[in-house]
């Protein structure tokens, strides 16, 4: 299995569909994502674009009605004896995945801390559970480790909190507990599925800082799923923009933020609230994502795209290379395409943001 040495997780041509009463929904249509050791990759998109499904496939949490049609999710890890090994997570049985990967090597933080903790179990037990499960030590060790983790994620009075039930904690505290649970067995990869969406704005920033802090301290690789570009700018090294089950633009944060090529990315950036824009209206992308019950013909975004070309209705654009790290799937990058620039307001806005950013670097 071919994989760059630094790459720790790689989604290769992932293709997933769901059986529903209304028919087959082709939710993921050939996704490629690469995560390198110690780096942070963000997956951005509207709800229903398939971001969550993509990562759930990696941790064996797909719903029962999902079918993986194609693709691999390669994961490189060090065995206990120090040798490196590459496995395809999709080829592993659920049992294998749970015993060797989940929690111990790849951990997950869920979107809503109000529902992601077991209401009938003390948080101490919930943290210790994983440690005991993966046999990292005895009960006393697990207890000490849980205390340590609670302190790591910034919960004071840890000894007392261990005995609390989830409903006794606030949303932000609960998300800290969820992060502590995820970190319990020193995983290599942390997958954060919209970890701040359900929280108050003031708490969002603190949780983001916390994740970044533990990432730096523990050398984790992180996958971030979000629809909030503000979050991406703060945390990510690489950005994947996802639309209708496909990655339509990928690049470093700077590339995607300051030189976006795909009209959909333009739309997302233009829709970001910005203090300095004096436009009265917040720009938004017209329409809604396509219903993947009916496979779109051509470019899935064409119907909402003000810069759609004739070919968009006939053929799906391939990923065009912009730079070694920057790719975008839009026919506008084809040599024959007319020269279309991003909207003026967005351009000025991005330039301003770029200058701002440079000032602080």
């Amino acid at each position, binding site marked *: 299995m071919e994989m760059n040495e630094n790459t720790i997780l790689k989604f290769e041509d992932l293709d997933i569909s769901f059986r529903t009463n209304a028919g087959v929904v082709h939710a993921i249509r050939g996704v490629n994502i690469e995560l390198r050791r110690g780096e942070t990759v963000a997956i951005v998109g509207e709800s229903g674009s398939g971001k969550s499904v993509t990562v759930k496939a990696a941790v064996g949490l797909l719903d029962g009605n999902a079918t993986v049609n194609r693709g691999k999710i390669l994961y490189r890890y060090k065995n206990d004896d120090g040798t490196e090994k590459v496995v395809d997570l999709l080829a592993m049985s659920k049992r294998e995945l749970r015993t060797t990967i989940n929690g111990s090597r790849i951990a997950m933080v869920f979107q809503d801390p109000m529902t992601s903790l077991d209401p009938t179990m003390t948080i101490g037990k919930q943290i210790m559970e994983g440690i005991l499960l993966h046999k990292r030590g005895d009960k006393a060790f697990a207890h000490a480790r849980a205390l340590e983790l609670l302190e790591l994620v910034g919960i004071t009075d840890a000894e007392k909190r261990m005995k609390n039930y989830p409903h006794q904690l606030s949303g932000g505290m609960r998300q800290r507990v969820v992060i502590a649970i995820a970190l319990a067995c020193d995983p290599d990869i942390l997958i954060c599925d919209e970890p701040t969406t359900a929280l108050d704005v003031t708490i969002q920033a603190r949780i983001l800082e916390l994740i970044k802090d533990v990432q730096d301290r523990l050398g984790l690789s992180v996958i971030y799923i979000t629809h909030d570009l503000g979050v991406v700018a703060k945390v990510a090294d690489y950005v994947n923009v996802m639309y209708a089950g496909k990655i339509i633009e990928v690049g470093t944060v700077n590339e995607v933020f300051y030189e976006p090529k795909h009209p959909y990315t333009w739309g997302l950036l233009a829709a970001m609230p910005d203090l300095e824009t004096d436009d009265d209206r917040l720009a938004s992308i*017209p329409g*809604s994502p396509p219903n993947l019950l009916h496979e779109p013909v051509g470019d899935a975004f*064409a*119907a909402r795209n003000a810069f*759609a*070309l004739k070919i968009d209705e006939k*053929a799906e654009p*391939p990923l065009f290379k912009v730079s070694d790290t920057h790719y975008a799937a839009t026919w506008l990058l*084809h040599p*024959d395409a007319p020269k279309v620039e991003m909207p003026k307001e967005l351009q000025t806005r991005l330039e301003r943001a770029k200058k701002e950013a440079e000032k602080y670097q």
Partner: protein
Amino acid sequence: MAETAYVPTKEDFELLTGRDITTDKNFASQSYWKGVAIHFLRNRRAMVGVFIVLAIILLAVFGPILSSYGYRDIVSYTDEAGKQVVAKGIAPQIGHAGDGPFDQYTFLFGTDDLGRDQWTRTWHGARVSLVIAFVTIIIDMIIGMSYGLISGYFGGAVDAVMQRIVEVANSVPRLVIVSVLAIFMPKGMGLVIVALLLTEWIGMSKIARAEMLRIKEQEYVLASRTLGAHSMHIIFKQILPNTIGPIITQVMFSIPTAIFTEAFLSFVGVGIMLPQCSIGSLIENGFNNITTLPYQILPPIIVLALQMLGFNFIGDGFREALAPKLEDM
């Protein structure tokens, strides 16, 4: 992939013009209720339920009319000797040539111990049960909804008092209500109806109140309140339509409860009285004659079970259609 086979021409790279991209074509065409209806119609079990219920209603309406016997008529004829011969305890049969006294008669479900046509009586009984169920549940729906909506809307002290009443009413077992009623009123259809009226509204009022509490604080209601709309106007014009879904679901589950209750009250002898008949009294009669005429008990039991099945399926269908899970979308 098929796309790679397509070789784009120069003309393909022209901007598309003259399109309307601002209208949302994915969702605009489907209203909420249309979505619910489509979901319900696609639900196979719900459709089976609708079919069963419709079939029983049709048979209950037309079964007795089409029959050549009345539900309380004893089928008999007078023979040459002037003796009356009664069609007692005849097994289900279709009229045929023969020497027996009733061979030419058709009794699809046979006749009972007194010589009455079981087919006619079964559908007449089904009719009585259905009428009782529909009438009481609809009245209960009106009472329960009004009570719950008012209680939920005004909140505070009004709500507290009204909910205490519900709590007490809910603590009285149905049987106790029936037995006290038996002191005050003659046994029969009236007693069954009143007993159901006194108990079934509670569930509806709880649903209506919960919906009211949920919807009350939503923007459009607050908006019309600040605009000075009258309380009753808000309750009945704005909130009522939104509570209709869960209430109808509850109705679909209450109807079988009512049918069940009628059946068991009639069975123990405080419900439908002679010469009327209902599903319950027919089952009782069948039970009394089970050793001699065992087939007699089957038609009312099957009709009862099918009624329950049908209404439960429809109720389930409504519930799923109103709150679809992603999986069965």
